């Protein structure tokens, strides 16, 4: 499995390559877009201006292209807003054409209309179907494969069993000259599959999260709430402002209930997967046929991202040296989490099963 890491700035590229990233994803938003649409109609899901989460300027992309040429670690550009308005489709097509001219060929896209538009315009870029698109299942992948996908990114709420089933379905459909073989390009038989591995576990599903993500307000899922009984009108006092009521994200203050496991950050305050972790599930993800692991974190503290990449690489090395899943989890936990983990599991079901096994 390859590590696909978020890139917030071109200054991070070499550092992240040197510690083990195989490829990257990042946003590029031209000034003219921001001037016209601000954060009202953003170009990708990092809907902010006040953070270094986008590659700023075409000039930077040219520098990044030179880096990619040297290190051969590709960069995918995100155009993954859930939807766009009619006038934006031709504008995006022009931006993508410009990016393709300087060497960027793969794009992470969530809006089916944009994929359709690009294909209608005969723009033959590689398309990674964003995890923000919709529910991912076999039928959905079949549907979008008609638009020539290079990769499918599973969303945060897909189980490993779901992924395995989808991947098996695709692989079987594309093998051999069977009657059921569909009209896809040969390259589609090697469709890639990406799963979330580290950071930024969200409480709601990206594809179905329509609320604001902007500079001037926090996320809607972080607004305080109370649990209330419907029938008798009483509140459940034991859960008032319950637990991590505001969010799972590490940058969010909240009134937290004590976690079962005591997190153990290092002396810089770093803990792998503090805001979302799928490391226990890597062995199973590999078995399921996942080809790429998403390490979220565009704009995160660079030192922490570097540590994330190192740790993910280390976990992958441990898989290679492990005969069984149990061996892998035991070794990985000892090495990466000697004092416990965050418990913010991407694949909680698997985590519980694995914990019971050990």
């Amino acid at each position, binding site marked *: 499995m390859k590590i696909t890491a978020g890139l917030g700035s071109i200054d991070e590229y070499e550092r992240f390559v040197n510690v083990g990233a195989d490829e990257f994803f990042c946003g590029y938003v031209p000034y003219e877009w*921001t001037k016209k649409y601000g954060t009202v109609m953003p170009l990708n899901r990092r809907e902010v201006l006040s953070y270094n989460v986008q590659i700023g300027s075409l000039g930077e992309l040219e520098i990044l292209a030179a880096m990619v040429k040297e290190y051969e670690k590709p960069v995918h550009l995100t155009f993954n807003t859930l939807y766009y308005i009619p006038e934006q489709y031709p504008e995006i097509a022009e931006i993508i054409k410009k990016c393709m001219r300087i060497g960027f060929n793969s794009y992470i896209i969530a809006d089916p209309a944009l994929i359709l538009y690009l294909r209608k315009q005969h723009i033959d870029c590689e398309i990674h179907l964003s995890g923000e698109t919709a529910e991912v299942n076999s*039928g*959905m992948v079949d549907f979008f494969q008609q638009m020539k996908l290079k990769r499918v990114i599973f969303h945060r*709420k897909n189980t490993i069993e779901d992924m395995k089933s989808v991947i098996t379905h695709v692989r079987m459909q594309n093998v051999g000259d069977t009657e059921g073989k569909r009209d896809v390009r040969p390259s589609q038989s090697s469709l890639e599959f990406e799963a979330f591995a580290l950071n930024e576990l969200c409480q709601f599903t990206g594809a179905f999260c329509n609320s604001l993500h902007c500079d001037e*307000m926090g996320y809607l899922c972080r607004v305080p*709430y109370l649990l*209330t009984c419907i029938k008798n009108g009483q509140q459940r006092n034991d859960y008032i402002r319950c637990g991590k009521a505001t969010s799972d994200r590490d940058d969010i203050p909240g009134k937290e209930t004590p976690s079962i496991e005591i997190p153990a950050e290092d002396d810089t305050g770093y803990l792998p997967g503090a805001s979302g972790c799928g490391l226990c599930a890597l062995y199973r993800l590999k078995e399921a046929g996942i080809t790429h692991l998403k390490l979220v974190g565009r704009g995160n503290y660079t030192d922490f991202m570097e540590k994330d990449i190192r740790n993910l690489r280390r976990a992958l090395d441990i898989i290679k040296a492990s005969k069984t899943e149990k061996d892998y989890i035991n070794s990985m936990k000892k090495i990466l989490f000697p004092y416990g983990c965050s418990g913010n599991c991407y694949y909680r079901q698997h985590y519980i099963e694995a914990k019971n096994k050990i």
Partner: protein
Amino acid sequence: MKMINGVSMIPFGLLAGFADQNEIRIIELAENGFRFRTAKDSETLTGKIKCFRICFYDDEISDYREILLREYQIEKPEEEKFYFTYSVFTKQEDFRKEVQGLLRRYTRYIHLKTEEDDAALAEALTGYPAEKDEIFAKNLTEQKNIWFQDVPGTKLAEVLHESKEFVLELDRPELYRMYLEENIQDFMKHYWEQTFFAFSEEIPECLPDRLYIGNQFCHLLFPEEKTLKTLLDKAYREDLAITIVYTYVRENLLKNTEKMLHMVDNWCEEKQKDVEIVVNDWAILSMAKKTPHLKLCMGTLLNKRKKDPRMKYKKGTREFYSENSLNADFYRDFLREKCGFQRFEWESCGYPQRFPEEKNSLHFPFYQTNTSQYCPLHAICTEGERGKQCLVENCPHFCEKYMLIYPEHLHMIGRYNSLFGLDLETLMHPEILKEKEEAGIDRLVLGVI
């Protein structure tokens, strides 16, 4: 060599730059100048540059102020492995002033972000009433009283009665049960009482033309096969048109969903009646090709748009919110011709929308903002933390007992696996619904959560 000694790496969204027509990245900014970098093979070479355009974002006006820099000096570039870095010095007064303003605003933002909570940040930047985030209704009864007590029931009923098509959503087991126990007239009386229970006026008889059966947002709220058949039979007897509502389809439920669609199609064949299906998952399209009696409606989860009860505080040009991808002809042609959609489901979400010339349903008064396939409410009730979610297989339906209540001023609730906003204006001023009809809506879908 002269030094800039400025602030490094100000986000590109706040500070953009152009050397003539070439978009550059300013990597350091000070009152006396800036540094930028270009690729080694870039055409942006110092000798050729006629002027710089520097763009400073001002969050107070949600726009940029652009300064043309004509008086400047460029130092000899520093060579790095992949790029050249240039230092540009200027004494231009308008540039200096804009730098001061930008750095002041940026510093303030960092302070607010790191020292204050989300509500205080929003208050400082948008006037969001942070103190109101502390005010909750005591319970659901009080919440509904606050929301609904002044709703003009008679007027609402009149508008619904006169509408082109008035539809009621049966979206949860308790409503399935309630509907099956009573005839439609009695059911409606109880529906008004149980869902609103706070109207100051009595709602006159107002019967729906159609029922939406199923839930757009949670797969665990779809009726079981036997219940669905019974609901279909009863609606048929009562001469109500039927729309069956599907949400996303989990991978392990694909086969069962296909089986159910065939069951419904067979029922249609038997009754010689077509039924609509609300589709919220792309996988259903291929299934529906084999079920000729099922007419497809594009559901809310696929018909996306920005929805947030705090929208009125959002800065920026609001007119862009009025459209979405469905306003693009090429996309609608595809959805109609290649996917078979015959109708589109919209929600009333507190701001004007431009509906395309299609068959359009409008759901009101609640609109979905966030949904998770793993149930957040289940996580709260079992783990004590909303974030500790996993796939729920044997759902105990905590949503029949519990819901999440939010700061009163936000007009939102957490129900099932989702968050919803309330567009109270559609209830308080039912003429808005008439206006929506004039704007292209031909069906009003009432769903009180």
